[in-house]
């Protein structure tokens, strides 16, 4: 089974955010950018599933400007097998991302799509739900525990909801968005960073996707 993980490049969580002098937005130039923490957790979960033998390949995808490649390299350094970068320099909103992801899923045909529950720059918490709706796949959001059963092709997801914990059984293929307590992402070790240099990052194009 192939797992696809969608990751986003955002302003590093520890940076002090400054508003631009013309108040048009937030200062992003010359500011440290990194992988969205929830996306890191999603990628870590995908890697753990692969290491337990239930998946054959982990593909990391990202939509954004050229520098997204750095974030994808981090993903590859953590252990993803290959990456796809959809180059789009402007700002994209959850619905557009969801449509792009839908097209990518139809091309790659993964058995599981993992995303972070929300991005720390916009806090939308919409992309995972929207792409599940577009694909007509079941969704388990705010996952704090994921258990896959390959024979029955079912994922049991514990969700953190307002009232406590809810357990769902989803038929695969499914969309799962990850929450903080799911796992602790691994560090990128040097041997893996070096291996990542030779891994492929395919270029994708946003045209052809419905806007």
């Amino acid at each position, binding site marked *: 089974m192939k797992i696809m993980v969608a990751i986003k490049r955002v302003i590093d969580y520890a940076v*002090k955010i400054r508003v631009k002098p013309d108040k048009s937005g937030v200062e992003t130039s*010359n500011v*440290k950018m990194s*992988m969205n923490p929830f996306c890191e957790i999603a990628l870590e979960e995908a890697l753990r599933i692969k290491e337990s033998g239930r998946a054959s390949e982990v593909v990391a995808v990202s939509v954004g400007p050229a520098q997204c490649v750095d974030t994808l390299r981090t993903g590859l350094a953590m252990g993803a097998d290959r990456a796809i970068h959809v180059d789009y320099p402007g700002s994209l909103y959850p619905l557009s991302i969801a449509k792009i992801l839908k097209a990518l899923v139809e091309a790659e045909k993964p058995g599981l799509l993992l995303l972070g529950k929300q991005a720390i720059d916009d806090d939308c918490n919409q992309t995972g739900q929207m792409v599940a709706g577009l694909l007509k796949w079941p969704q388990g959001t705010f996952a704090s525990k994921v258990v896959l059963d390959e024979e029955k092709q079912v994922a049991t997801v514990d969700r953190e909801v307002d009232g406590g914990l809810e357990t769902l059984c989803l038929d695969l293929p499914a969309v799962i968005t990850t929450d903080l307590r799911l796992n602790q992402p691994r560090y990128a*070790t*040097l041997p893996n960073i*070096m291996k990542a240099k030779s891994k492929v990052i395919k270029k994708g194009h946003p045209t052809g996707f419905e806007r």
Partner: protein
Amino acid sequence: MEKWRLTYRLLKHSSNFDRRLTSGHRYLFGRTFIPFKENFRTLECPSRSYVNGASVSFARVNGNSYAVQHRYLASVASTTQRNPDFSKITSDDISYFKKILGERGVVQDEEKLADANTDWMRKHKGSSKLMLQPRITEEVSQILKYCNSRCLAVVPQGGNTGLVGGSVPVFDEVIINVGSMNNILSFDKVSGILVCEAGCILENLISFLDNQGFIMPLDLGAKGSCQIGGNVSTNAGGLRLIRYGSLHGSVLGLEAVLANGTVLDMLGTLRKDNTGYDLKHLFIGSEGSLGIVTKVSILTPPMLSSVNLAFLACEDYASCQKLLLEAKRKLGEILSAFEFLDVNALNVVLKHLDGLRDPLPSSVHNFYVLIETTGSMESHDKEKLEAFLLQSMNSGIITDGVLAQDINQTSSFWRIREGIPEALMKAGAVYKYDLSVPPEKMYELVEEMRARLGSAANVVAYGHLGDGNLHLNISAPQYTDGLLSKIEPFVYEWTSKHRGSISAEHGLGLMKADKIHYSKSPETVLLMAAIKKLLDPNRILNPYKVLPPSILSQS
């Protein structure tokens, strides 16, 4: 000797023994125990070299009486007694101070004094009954002038994070705490020159400069509490010395108050000023024994955007050295920190501090090195660093490593290195040594110490490998005299033999007050004593510390 030891033990257990009865006896170190601390330990009572009698005191903490056991850490041949030339505080003195400082500036509250009397390591406890908190230089000047005229000994105090007992009273010296003088006076955005008062906490200065796009040229684990006046007075080193140099270079000027109240305004903000003898250097590193620093003018480097941190593993110490050489050559101008820790240090940290995990859990390594690079171009720095690391891995110098991918990971790796002193404190008793030794010999000392002590103690080594500075810590469940005798004077003699420094950055304080001869020639020490006599003839500033009392009493 035996008879005396027996008497001491009997006295120790006697509840009627009152410290006030033992006037004129040496009271060097002590430790109080607070009941809610998990490890409620009593100390062995040491008796090795003390011949004039013993003193035991019962401290009153929150109304309960706890036996204060004495632990003599230094093998002092001569006894240190309270200098009889110093006066004792009278109520007239207190009213005078209240007149100058107001009610707020005069602290006699027992709880606050208990904190101010105890050092961070909880090894040294004074018995001062008075703490003064001046808010402007003029007040400091008036206090000192008065104390000099009355021959009242004083201890300048800042953040009280010193590790050699230099910031707390030995007997009943008046504590002059400059913590209330914490204003930032000016900052020049073009030159990066910051002028501030001595009581500014380092971390606050770092945050202030953060907003301006600059950084402090020094960074240490104690930044949350230590004050810049203290940093300057002790010539603090820290993690970035390899890149920005020592405070002797970064401090452009300072304002100090001498023992007789004279205010020396050397608060220049000029990068270059060759007019006469540069006296500020006397005060930098003098540990408060020549004057109290009240203002500091410091050159701050601009903040560079790209910071990378690698946590690496090496098989043996020789590889760590090779790595240092390669790093200096290959990383060149972007190298900003090079720290090392051995596996014992990592284990102590992981065991005693929360929220940290081993960055390289897959296997056990003997040595870990932290390399930080700071530069202005992320892509260039990352490329350089990765090329360097790849080459080091291929040549076998490093066996494994991780590169921090975001600021969160960067701070966790730094926490591992910066948290070692704290973790050691939690682990129990710790004998702390800070030595400058030739880098190629550094670990030899650690191995010899391990061989000497065997299973009696955990020898932990870490330090600023980039500066040739080893922090040798011996961790044991409790302080014992037997252990101390195996460590000292061996460690000092070893260092002296290799022409190293017995105190690389911590200073001499009280702990090493009579050890200077291991690292400095007699002629230089005599000249130091002469300078001390010139600037502080009554010897009221931070007495019993830095220079050997015997030398000072001769001059």
